[in-house]
């Protein structure tokens, strides 16, 4: 096939304009030839015979007149067995291999094969003569702890493909032919375990999309109990810098109850990725007994790497997530941070001299963000199994102000909002998710009535504390003061969680339920308390015991002891259950 070519006519930052002949399509990939280097770039605007390309590399040294080669392909990723445990840049370049080839620095113009050249034990599922549709299973290979389905490539036409031949059980190289398929007109096509798919097009080869109802357990108490996330849902974590977005994402990536976690480090610090890189191969996933790395894929386009590839990185990540979803797996995609991705769009929009919208973000910002989050979802596949992609994105609002365009556009489309607050992080109340401002549309792992009871105490306590600022402690009634102390207790022993404590950093569901029930006894009881000083002393003691309890492993003999101590502490002062609490507990 004769490839199109063109010549550079201008360079402006990471945008290059190219005069071409023949046909060029939008989002097509082109290579700028610079000596023996080939710089990957993507067409983002065509006007007459001039195409504007965003270059995924630094543009130093490019000259007017340099040759450009168009590929006729949209920006795509390779899909196949061997993706798990990989560390890619935004264009699916494997970074460790790149490091062994180029050393410390990211040399530009080097693109390696994304899928490693391995051989796999193939077990056929389809038989000769079967009629299959794209995304139907041809066979399987074991990939780590999962059964990786080898499917009819998704980009095949959506008609029935007849299996002409298929390899028997055995070990084959990943790029070997494993089957030949023919369409109704008799055109034959060879299939290997690897195929590619354009990253900006969602994969929709499922029977139906379902409503996300099943909770996705993160083992973070404030999230699972008060602000839950569902499998196939979406959530966002906006917060000013230093409020703990990344620590929260990191905790989630370790503890989340899903099959595969894909981490898209998009325009953030390289150091944070390194922590994941070095820790995950050492950490054992209690669910599987294997290391966490075996269920993880990292797409890493950190802030000092070229900006255009940053924009591609979130799409690369979500495409790989959708691919694994087609195997009936549950995937959590953590994007940190979507603001950097939006900024990459803004930079490009500026170079294209588009009319700027709010804060100079392009006018299409909202629709782009919406269509990205819409790629999440829980689906029923054609074979009846369920798979899901859950997307959790952090947002880094300028000045910590949630009124800015990226946060607002994100809030319109997500199902849960975990807003981090500077106030809470300054007071070292981690995770600094604001319990009153945040919301979730998904259902909790704990009885809804109990949760809303606790939430009401948080609200009431907040009101009392506001009032106390005006009238002082002496102007507050004892009852109000106790409500305030109860809300403080929920905050310090339940909402706050120490992510650096070996026990407290992960609170499984049964533990959350147990602790919440004991806490609920304190919250729902009318207590015999003489004065404010006694109230404070009582709550301080309870808090201390709860914290000790939270830091004690279940196997530890003291675990039951602490529970007893708390219960007897409450029993000493117990008068009766408050009416609404009694109703919830169905006691008198």
């Amino acid at each position, binding site marked *: 096939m004769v490839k199109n070519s063109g010549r550079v006519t201008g360079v402006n930052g990471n945008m290059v304009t190219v005069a071409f002949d023949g046909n060029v399509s939008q989002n097509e990939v082109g290579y700028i030839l610079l000596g023996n280097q080939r710089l990957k770039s993507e067409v983002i605007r065509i006007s007459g015979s001039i195409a504007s390309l965003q270059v995924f590399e630094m543009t130093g040294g490019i000259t007017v007149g340099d040759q450009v080669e168009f590929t006729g392909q949209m920006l795509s990723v390779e899909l196949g067995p061997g993706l798990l445990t990989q560390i890619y840049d935004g264009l699916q370049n494997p*970074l460790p291999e790149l490091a062994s080839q180029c050393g410390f620095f990211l040399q530009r113009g080097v693109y390696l094969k994304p899928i490693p050249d391995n051989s796999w034990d193939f077990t056929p599922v389809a038989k000769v003569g079967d009629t299959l549709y794209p995304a139907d299973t041809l066979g399987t290979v074991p990939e780590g702890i999962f059964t990786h389905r080898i499917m009819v490539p998704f980009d095949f036409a959506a008609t029935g493909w007849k299996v002409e031949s298929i390899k028997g059980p055995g070990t084959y190289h990943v790029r070997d032919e494993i089957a030949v398929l023919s369409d109704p007109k008799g055109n034959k096509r060879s299939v290997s375990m690897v195929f590619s798919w354009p990253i900006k097009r969602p994969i929709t080869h499922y029977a139906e999309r379902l409503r996300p109802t099943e909770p996705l357990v993160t083992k973070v108490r404030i999230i699972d109990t008060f602000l839950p996330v569902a499998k196939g849902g979406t959530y966002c974590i906006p917060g000013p810098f*230093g409020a703990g977005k990344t620590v929260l994402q990191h905790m989630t990536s370790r503890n989340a109850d899903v099959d595969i976690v894909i981490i898209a480090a998009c325009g953030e610090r390289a150091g944070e990725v390194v922590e994941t890189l070095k820790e995950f191969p050492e950490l054992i996933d209690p669910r599987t007994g294997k290391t966490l790395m075996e269920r993880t894929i990292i797409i890493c386009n950190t802030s000092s790497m070229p900006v255009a590839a940053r924009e591609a990185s979130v799409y690369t990540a979500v495409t790989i997530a959708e691919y694994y979803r087609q195997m009936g797996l549950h995937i959590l995609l953590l994007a940190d941070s979507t603001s950097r991705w939006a900024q990459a769009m803004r930079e490009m929009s500026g170079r294209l001299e588009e009319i700027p919208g709010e804060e*100079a973000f392009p006018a299409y910002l909202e629709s782009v963000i919406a269509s990205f989050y819409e790629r999440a979802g829980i689906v029923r596949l054609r074979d009846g199994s369920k798979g899901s992609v859950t997307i959790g994105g952090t947002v880094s609002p300028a000045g910590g102000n949630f009124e800015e365009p990226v946060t607002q556009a994100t809030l319109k489309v997500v199902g849960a909002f975990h807003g981090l607050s500077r106030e809470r992080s300054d007071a070292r109340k981690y995770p600094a998710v604001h319990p009153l401002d945040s919301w979730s549309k998904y259902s909790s792992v704990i009885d809804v009535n109990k949760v809303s009871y606790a939430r009401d105490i948080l609200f009431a306590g907040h009101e009392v504390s506001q009032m106390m600022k005006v009238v002082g402690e002496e102007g507050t009634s004892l009852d109000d003061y106790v409500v305030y102390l109860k809300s403080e207790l929920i905050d310090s022993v339940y909402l706050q969680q120490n992510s650096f404590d070996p026990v407290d950093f992960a609170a499984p569901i049964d533990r959350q339920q147990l602790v919440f029930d004991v806490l609920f006894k304190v919250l729902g009881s009318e207590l015999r308390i003489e004065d404010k000083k006694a109230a404070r002393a009582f709550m301080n003691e309870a808090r201390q015991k709860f914290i000790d309890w939270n830091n004690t492993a279940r196997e530890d003999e003291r675990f039951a002891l602490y529970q007893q101590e708390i219960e007897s502490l409450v029993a000493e002062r117990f008068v009766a259950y408050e009416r609404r609490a009694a109703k919830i507990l169905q006691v008198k």
Partner: protein
Amino acid sequence: MQKVYTKIESIAGNVITVKAAGVRNSDLAVVTSSHGESLANVIKLAGETVSLQVFSGARGISTGDHVRFLGYPMRISYTEDLLGRVFTGSGKPRDNGPELTDNLIEIGGPAVNPAKRIIPRNMIRTGLPMIDVFNTLVESQKLPIFSVSGEPYNEVLARIAMQAEVDLIILGGMGLKYDDYLFFKETLEKSGAMSRTIFFVHTASDPTVECLLVPDISLAVAERFALDGKKVLVLLTDMTNFADAMKEIAITMEQVPSNRGYPGDLYSSLAARYEKAVDFEGAGSVTILAVTTMPGDDVTHPVPDNTGYITEGQYYLKNSRIEPFGSLSRLKQQVNKDTRDDHRALMDGMIKLYASYKESLEKKSMGFQMSEWDDKLLKYGELFESKLMELSVNIPLEEALDLGWEILADCFEPKETGIRSELVLKHWPDAAS
């Protein structure tokens, strides 16, 4: 490539354009005018039209002046001879020493492959409890000091520089007052650290474009020394001037501004510099300590705001103290687990109590009756501020931790501290319990 162009098409701000063929993006050129020679670099190509930013400013340049393209990008000599020397942002000596032309390296090189980075693991001791105890500085960290103009940020920087155990110090000054430049020079000379220091200084009266080059040139040299096994500490003061210089060029180039006139790529440009902080496996490291002045004490101003998202924490300097709120070292968790078992718990506990102290202080200032608890907090807050927060305090970490327990025991009962019981049992000073 050595062709001379004698027709300058336009001059706007510090940017000139000429019509030329075969010029490569980012290459250097020499502009010769009646005022002398200046370097310039290519920042945009559009057909035949080449835009260049002139390092010494376009003032006095005439349309008939000569432009000669050199065919290579900005470079700096990398040799041991750099030590103890002072240069301008474009790498020219400003100390009457000889010009260095050996072993030239390009500046603004590619990013480090994240797969080749290692987890930082060495604490840098500074003797300031607010840093050592509460927000430990770590080798290969990038950390700015957020400060209002008028605060002694350069003094803090100089003090950390002298106490830090590093092989090499590189000072990148941007828009530095001449007095401050002399202050740094004198302080380092007096302490004998000058022989392991390199200065790249742009003073407030120098041309703007040179300001833009200071971080790149400083970090390019730092990176090379680190690759050769040296522990390098880079001090950059003041990055807000750098951002303002970027703004100036962007506006001249008629780019669409994003926020308060700053270009849309402010974040990426700052990140490209800060991310040069690295610990090379089997070689040295680059640690960056920068100063970002906050115009109008506003942390939401685009420069401190974007910086905060890039760097691994920040120190707030306010009223000549490093504020515990807002100050953060993101890497402290990497090192403070290995210092002493009570380090983390004490750090968190003391800050929580200090936050409560602030609330009580507010109540007091509004004239409310103080409870017993409030009185305890007030006492605690005052001790905390005078014994730990003052910049004059200079004690090692272990002493500072012991002092912390003493302050707690002075003010509270153990169970009021919110610290785990086993730690309290182990460290609570006996005399007070």
